[in-house]
């Protein structure tokens, strides 16, 4: 019977080692000096986006690309930072970038960071019909005024809208549908105190808005 604990500890080693290797990767590249990779890490407000739920939030191909050639999502900085908007913005420093090999390994690691209690399959992948999409676009731009703080895509295919919130102009390539749904329904699961108003959406509206957001894509993004 001595064999069982041995096998268990072997299994444990195998299970834990790749993750460990990767979390030292985030230290090696200095990521952990800016980002938090665990929900318990700190109760302080985040000065840069939290990544402990990256596996829920992102589409993997976007991460792989972002880590190699970063793009600006938050034109005026991170809204959870208490100093957000307090000073006129000079320029955002460029995000560190990784080689292709490093980026693929890092994306694997980031996709393993998920919250245990998030339901999946909240949003089916049937796209909005043309008519419904027009109606939801009106919700996004008019009734809820989401566009006042977020970039969307106008008829000419250009990003347009407010910039205090993260750009949603390429959200269809960037964000995972389930995560967007959960963000709209229960933002506190991810951010203790943000600056987006709470809309108290019913499930149906949250699903429709999620599908609309997931339809926003920047044309030449590959």
């Amino acid at each position, binding site marked *: 019977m001595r064999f069982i604990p041995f096998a268990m500890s072997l299994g444990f080693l195998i299970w834990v080692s790749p993750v460990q290797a990767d979390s030292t990767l985030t230290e090696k590249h200095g990521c952990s000096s800016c980002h938090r990779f665990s929900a318990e890490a700190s109760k302080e407000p985040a000065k840069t986006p939290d990544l402990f739920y990256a596996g829920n939030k992102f589409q993997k191909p976007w991460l792989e690309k972002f880590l190699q050639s970063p793009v600006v999502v938050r034109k*005026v900085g991170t809204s959870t930072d208490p100093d957000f*908007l*307090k000073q006129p913005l000079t320029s955002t420093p460029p995000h560190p970038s990784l080689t292709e090999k490093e980026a693929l390994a890092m994306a694997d690691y980031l996709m393993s960071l998920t919250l245990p209690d998030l339901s999946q399959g909240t949003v089916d992948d049937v796209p909005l019909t043309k008519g419904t999409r027009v109606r939801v676009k*009106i919700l*996004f*731009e*008019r*009734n*809820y*005024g989401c*566009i*006042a*703080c977020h970039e*969307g895509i*106008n008829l000419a295919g250009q990003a*347009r*809208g*407010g*910039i*205090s919130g993260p750009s949603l102009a390429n959200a269809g390539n960037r964000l995972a549908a389930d995560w967007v749904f959960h963000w709209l329904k229960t933002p506190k699961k991810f951010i203790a105190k943000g*600056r987006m*108003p*709470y*809309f*108290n959406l019913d499930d149906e509206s949250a699903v429709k808005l999620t599908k609309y957001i997931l339809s926003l894509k920047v044309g030449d993004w590959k």
Partner: protein
Amino acid sequence: MTWKNPLKILFCGWLVLQLSGCGDSEKKTDEPPPAAKAAPETSSPPAPKISLVTAKTRETYQWYCSQCHGLKGKGDGVNARLLTVPPRDHTKADYLETRTDQQLFDAIKLGGLAVGRAPCMPSWGHTLDEKMIHSLVRYIRELCECEAF
């Protein structure tokens, strides 16, 4: 659809105007939309006589409202120049004197669209409690150094 019928074209133009949201910078205007014809649906009993402006009120304003109205309420937040209708300058007495406290309260709680103002003013009724909204109204009265006529 063919574009032969001029009425159709007219109709489409009208539709675009009706449906326009608040982010289309193409149609930027400095004019506020006409005031609501119908009385706005009132949401709550009139503001109590005394609601205090505390440090928390100012922090709340700076945390949320400054995104559009600016840190000092001058209507110059980061989103301001990207909106169809500019955010109100909360330091301008000549306009704010024409609005009652109840009207300001309703605009904050229910959002611009619900009270016949521009939709780019979001509703804060699910984010802030009524006590805080009342004290934000008082804070705006401090900023404009004005009261309703």
